[in-house]
């Protein structure tokens, strides 16, 4: 196993463990921090897959800004944690776990086909693949319309969030 593959599998283990912490821990703040760690492991995946700009943007935007927002809300609302246990029916638990296992089994079933068609993980990519120049050129030429629409979407989301977060003005 090459060092890169070893690193990939180590990172995959950490990603799965931190995702498990997110959905199992009682305390919402610890869940949020596990999610930050998870986002950083996904950023490491991106860098391993030659998407260096996307990896660092993942850390700056997702782990560095969105999750700070989550933490603010959790700390201000201070909800009482209850974890996965509690009033949850057995049917709900079994159906959910069953569906998740079906999903993973489905992927395992198509894996051999993927190993044959993409032997070795694909061809060598051109120099500068995933660097900011390539992404910038694609963003402002082929993907110009989605780019502009995304900016409108973010503006709308900002206005919506501001409006919904406002306190009622009591007459």
């Amino acid at each position, binding site marked *: 196993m090459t060092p890169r593959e070893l690193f990939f599998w180590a990172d995959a283990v950490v990603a799965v463990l931190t995702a498990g912490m997110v959905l199992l821990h009682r305390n919402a703040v610890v869940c949020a921090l596990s999610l930050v760690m998870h986002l950083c492991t996904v950023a490491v995946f991106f860098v391993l897959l030659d998407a260096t700009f996307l990896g660092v943007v993942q850390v700056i935007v997702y782990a560095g800004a969105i999750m700070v927002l989550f933490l603010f809300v959790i700390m201000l609302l201070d909800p009482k944690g209850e974890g996965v246990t509690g009033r949850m029916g057995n049917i709900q638990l079994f159906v959910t776990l069953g569906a998740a296992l079906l999903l993973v089994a489905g992927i395992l079933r198509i894996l051999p086909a993927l190993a044959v068609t993409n032997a070795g993980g694909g061809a060598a*990519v051109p120099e500068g693949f995933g660097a900011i120049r390539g992404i910038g050129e694609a963003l402002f030429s082929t993907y110009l319309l989605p780019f502009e629409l995304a900016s409108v979407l973010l503006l*709308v989301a900002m206005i919506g969030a501001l409006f919904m977060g406002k306190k009622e003005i009591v007459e």
Partner: protein
Amino acid sequence: MISFGAILLVSGILFAMGVVGVLLRRSALVILMSIEVMLNAANLAFVGASRSVGSIDGQMFAFFVMAVAAAEAAVGLAIIIALFRQRHTTDVDQVSFLKW
């Protein structure tokens, strides 16, 4: 070299864990966080596909997914705050007003 199958396997496992989190947790904030886990699993699949095909389109899509996730997190948190002001709880089992 990392095979695309391995990436899809990891992505699938993470996505399944996100789904389990959404369905089993009662705190609205943790549900939102599990949704973020699902979105990241999808992003991982996109970037893996982009690498194995050699085209930048997968990374572009992941970029836009990130932008949409940011917008969705902001609005979702605003909704949770507004809900908390009304009902003083973030437990989704206790806000089932529309159930018949």
